């Protein structure tokens, strides 16, 4: 087993959308903000604190710009969780020139232990935004379809 990184400090939130859910993460770099947005996405389906980092999955994404890269990153994660029937709770992310490489740690869905919410179908371009709001504070957000 790959050694998982320590737990992430929580720096994400859900924002209001009547039918679906807005996911928003903050960080000092785009990569940190992307990790937090990923945690916000997992949190739609289960409490990340209940998800053990037992297995590692590597994935990558690329896009013409950082905003589309966020959608690609979340969609790559959603795909891995859907096909592996897994949930993730830890992430290592590197972003270079709108290319992203990542490792995600998690475990198979366990109905007895995970308090499950609704499945995320995909990340949309709605309210899609990746920006440095103030020096050293990045925000990454979009609405995910549930």
């Amino acid at each position: 087993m790959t050694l998982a990184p320590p737990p992430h400090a929580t720096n994400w939130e859900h924002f209001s959308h009547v039918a679906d859910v807005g996911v928003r993460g903050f960080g000092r770099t785009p990569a940190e903000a992307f990790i937090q947005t990923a945690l916000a996405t997992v949190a739609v389906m289960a409490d990340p604190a209940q998800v053990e980092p037992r297995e590692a999955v590597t994935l990558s994404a690329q896009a013409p710009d950082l905003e589309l890269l966020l959608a690609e990153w979340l969609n790559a994660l959603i795909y891995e969780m859907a096909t592996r029937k897994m949930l993730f709770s830890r992430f290592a992310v590197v972003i270079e020139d709108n290319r992203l490489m990542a490792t995600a740690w998690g475990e198979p869905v366990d109905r007895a232990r995970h308090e499950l919410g609704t499945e995320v179908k995909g990340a949309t371009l709605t309210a899609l935004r990746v920006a440095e709001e103030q020096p050293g504070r990045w925000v990454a957000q979009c609405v995910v379809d549930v």
Partner: protein
Amino acid sequence: MDPGRFERISGYEWRVEPVGTMRVPAVIYADEDLIRDMDDKVFEQVVNVAALPGIVGASYAMPDAHWGYGFPIGGVAAFDPDQGGVVSAGGVGFDISCGVRALTTGLPKAEILKAQRDLADALFRHIPAGLGSTGAIRLDAAEMDAMLAGGATWALARGWGEARDLERIEEHGCMKGAEPDAVSEKAKKRQKDEMGTLGSGNHYLEVQEIAEVFDPVAAEAYGLRAGEIVVSIHCGSRGLGHQIGTEYLREMAEAAARHGIRLPDRELACAPIDSDVGRRYLGAMRAAINCALANRQIIGHLTREVFAQFFPKTRLELLFDVSHNTCKIEEHEVGGKKRRLFVHRKGATRAFGPGHAELPEALRPIGQPVLIGGSMGTGSYVLAGTRESETRAYSSSCHGAGRRMSRHQALKSWRGRYVVDDLAARGILIRSPSMRGIAEEAPGAYKDVGQVVEAAERAGLSRKVVYLKPLICVKG
């Protein structure tokens, strides 16, 4: 949103004449209260859709419209390929062909009440539901392609269902023009073990009592009698449809600029119907429609298996199977001329009126059944398509109540256990793998479905036939 932003045509029709880049008017069918409850984004989105190339007539929103991505949910728009018309992945949605099928049982309510608890448990055991669930069916590559090309006819050939079901399914169970090759390997992989599963969120299987009859003639023609039991199944194309939506949304976002389409909003991603990506999307989307039709056909069969254990003499007859998220080629009369249009319905139901050639003979005098989904406690409706609806919104109607509260807010407002106990006290048994899911889907998180249906009727989109009250709900 402020009703003052519209010109009020009648108590149930609100209009925005074309301004700026709008090519056609935008029209919302709703009463004043429903308009006030809608998000401002619905206005923005219905107006933005009116600016897309090749749009014909108007950009419409149904009474249950709410903020979607690109198109509003509850949005209807038709495009002409000969006038540069577009097809939009966002105009169909992620859960392609998500819809409802309803089966009549002829059983009186008393029979269900005798077995209610055991029947609820058996349905929950037999029909996979919830996040991460898988079905017993595994498809290899050849079977996957056969399913995507064949829809419910494929399922029937494999032993799921009865031949007479097909005429009660839109497209007679098989959407023509599906292109399994236009569906990515990733989308197919996502579906490999998800056939015959309900999914999560607002998807469900409900055992319902016909609690009120509004139109006895139509009800009789539909086989719906007061006090008898109906089973409704709400689900869609599962992972395959979601992945197709994801991939083509991204591809169209890039293609639009290449085709010189100026998008008022990036999420309105679309491409000309007559373009490579447009054609591939249509082929993939039709394959996803078939996936949804096959999925509901299998779940219908599983439901029959459970009922056969409890009520061996009872036959479950398919009333109808409708889709809520599609783009279909249809002929509609515009300005006295028949035109072949690509009609997008996102969170809206096709609602063909009486006499339509597409309808099976038994339903033709009445019009198409329009199945309106409920939410555990709020009940559902069966409506009938009207002739007027053709001129109102290309024969379309609403699809459900629509949420009035976010999942986040619902979670803060209710506990799942409380919702289950409260509904049990009202005679409704809920079975679900997720207490949190139940809280998110609490009936109070939805708008009043009765008000939505009333507005759809008053606007001439469809008319009320019966009201269905839930007795058992298996919730994903």
